[in-house]
């Protein structure tokens, strides 16, 4: 297997000793089928034990390892070195405060996720003995893409609106709300509207579409938000025509 010497330039920050972050470069002998995460693990194991970063599954499903690679938000476990040049700049995800090295503060995102009522609001209390709700494959397909979000927050790192205004609820949280709104078993759209159809929610989005471009699982949060805008607008006008109507 061929080896390639790659320079990894990593943004470091230790709040106890550093006034601000600074870059540190490591030269790593990379195998040709490696991902950036393999190179970073090599650095930690062989070169510098003080490097902190998040990772777990190494198969792009846990969402831990999001970082900026040459300015682009990516999962380090799915960024193949064969697609990258001999010099790779790695920074923590944009638009989040840096906790330490490549670890960002996730509090705002976790709060946004919670705020959109991200669980099924069922039409009625069904007993277990009554079995499952019926849902056809066609009904499932309607909301299926929006269930695939791994909460990696690459979309927040790519979104210029979130960069500009940290109150923006953001792509992943809004896509999750849309997932439930489209689920045939759910009646929670009204409950979610206060947050979702607000100025800090879908109306903050100007459809840059960067979120959908960087999403590793093609969740397409941009589409979710535009569809939510149409749905919210319809709710508004139909609300005029029939006050007290359930959306």
């Amino acid at each position: 297997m061929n080896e390639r010497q790659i320079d990894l330039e990593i943004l470091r920050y230790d709040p106890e000793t550093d006034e601000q972050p600074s870059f540190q470069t490591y030269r790593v002998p990379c195998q040709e089928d490696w991902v950036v995460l393999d190179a970073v693990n090599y650095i930690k194991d062989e070169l510098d034990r003080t490097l902190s970063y998040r990772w777990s599954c190494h198969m792009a499903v846990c969402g831990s390892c999001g970082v900026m690679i040459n300015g682009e938000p990516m999962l380090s476990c799915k960024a193949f070195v064969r697609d990258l040049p001999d010099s790779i700049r790695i920074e923590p995800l944009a638009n989040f405060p840096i906790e330490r090295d490549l670890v960002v503060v996730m509090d705002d995102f976790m709060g946004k996720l919670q705020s959109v009522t991200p669980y099924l609001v069922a039409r009625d209390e069904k007993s277990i003995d009554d079995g499952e709700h019926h849902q056809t494959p066609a009904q499932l397909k309607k909301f299926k893409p929006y269930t695939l979000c791994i909460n990696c927050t690459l979309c927040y790192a790519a979104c210029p609106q979130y960069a500009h205004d940290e109150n923006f609820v953001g792509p992943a949280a809004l896509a999750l709300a849309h997932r439930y709104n489209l689920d045939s078993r759910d009646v929670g759209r009204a409950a979610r509207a206060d947050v979702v159809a607000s100025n800090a929610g879908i109306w903050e989005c100007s459809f840059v579409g960067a979120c959908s471009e960087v999403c590793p699982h093609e969740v397409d949060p941009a589409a979710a938000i535009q569809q939510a805008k149409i749905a919210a607008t319809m709710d508004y006008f139909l609300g005029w025509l029939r006050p007290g109507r359930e959306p």
Partner: protein
Amino acid sequence: MQVITTDVVIVGAGGAGLRAAIAIAEENSDLRVALLSKVYPMRSHTVAAEGGAAGVARDDDSLDNHFNDTVSGGDWLCDQDAVDLFVAEAPRELTRMEHWGCPWSRQPNGRVAVRPFGGMKVERTWYAADKTGFHMLHTLFQTSMKYPTIERYDEFYSTDLLVVDGHCRGVAAIEMRSGQLRLFSAKAVIIATGGAGRIFPFTTNGAIKTGDGMAMAYRAGVALKDMEFVQYHPTGLPGTGILITEGSRGEGGILVNKDGYRYLQDYGLGPPDPWPRKKAMELGPRDRLSQAFWHEHRKGRTIDTPHGDVVHLDLRHLGEQRIDERLPMVRDLAVSYVGVDPVYEPIPVRPVVHYTMGGIDTDIDARTSLAGLFAAGECACVSINGANRLGSNSLTELLVFGARAGRGAAELAVAETSDANETAILEQAKVAQDRVGRLFQSSGGGESIAGLRREMNTTMEAGAGIYRTDASLRESCTVMNDVRKRYAGIELEDKSNVYNTDLIQALELGAMVDVAGAVIVAALERKESRGSHQRLDHTERDDEAYLKHSLAHYVDGDDARIDYRDVVITRSPPGERVYGGEQK
């Protein structure tokens, strides 16, 4: 030191931990739950499970069938009272998940769909495409956000249990963002920290599967049961060990050696036709399939690659449409990580460590021998999986026993009227402080965490792999004793406080060293072959001597002490495990 008082502490926020938390919140909205996890809940390794969760669904299926498949799949080491309870609760828990919004794949008529899975006589594996664990974890996590009484402590690494007067009254945990040790005082504690696959070098398991909770209970005097039983999943990608779900065989995928021959028919799993047939060939149990690979390798019939020997998993005959509909993630993983599109080429696969059947000794109510301590999920051993777990039983296990642990802990928390003596709690905390503090001190040892981890990995694969011998196990025992001694001399290179992952990795290595020791000694003592524990020097199953669970007891500074407990046999006496065409 700060003491946070709550009613129940749950360590681990994967499928079992979240299910337990929800069970408590639904049972009693006055009880406070502190849900601790060293990672954010959606990162828990439940997320990587792919194939499905088993629960009787079809009219032509029965609880008896699920019971028999599980007991024989476990080579009769399962406690049959626990299995009876498990199969009865399974469909109810899976239905409950559907009520919470889990996007189960469906039949055209709108009912939940089920797929065939290894070792199961009738289809009963509920699935959500090939990302079942992902969907279950996110459904549980999102549902948990309904309950304000569940307080999450994300990125807290628990180091020790706090035991007062023989009762487990809390945990000590490091708040990773500040490096500070925090004490949680509670009336009941549930451990749901997952398995320990990372003691091996090639594994489907993510970085976090380091047996932390198992080690915590073990050191506190709770036995680890059946540790010698480690499951190799037959189809992991070479190099990375990434899981290629059994569901791909459930949909009809076949395994061939370098001659394009479906070799499983040579190992009692044939005849190869008519295909597909339940419990035959590629739908046999995982231990048999992994063992077949080992034999093919010895015969020189596997395919050599830079990442070791492989066989081929061929899905081409399924066609692009079926693959995209039922196995989209499998296609993506194969294309990305080994450059193979399964629509056109077979996927190279090999057995990799996947699941720890063994774990914290619990009864069927998820209780341990330590009052106030419960355990559920992969970190626990009830045992419903026995000597070999059937695929898709463990996702269901998380729900059934997570719920039981939650309900048990809630009951205990209500009955226990007083909070623990804070002085006693602070006293207990000294052990945790020492464990962490020692790592910051100068030792002059010059040992490297990565180096010791590699030595452990190498000896576990060599000595305690798919096939074991007395000699190989004794060698591993010697190596691990040496590793344990040298671990004591580790000094951190990173002595900072904020998000210090050198510290966390050092603590994880400490847990793995303890757990690995238990695995080796238990394997040495079990002089028979059963399920996934195969000995080249004791090739037969010996029910007279070994129809028992092994119990490993922690001995500070020495090898584990093993004793045994009879398996609970109720209505299925040990028989022959029959797969392939001969089974009825």
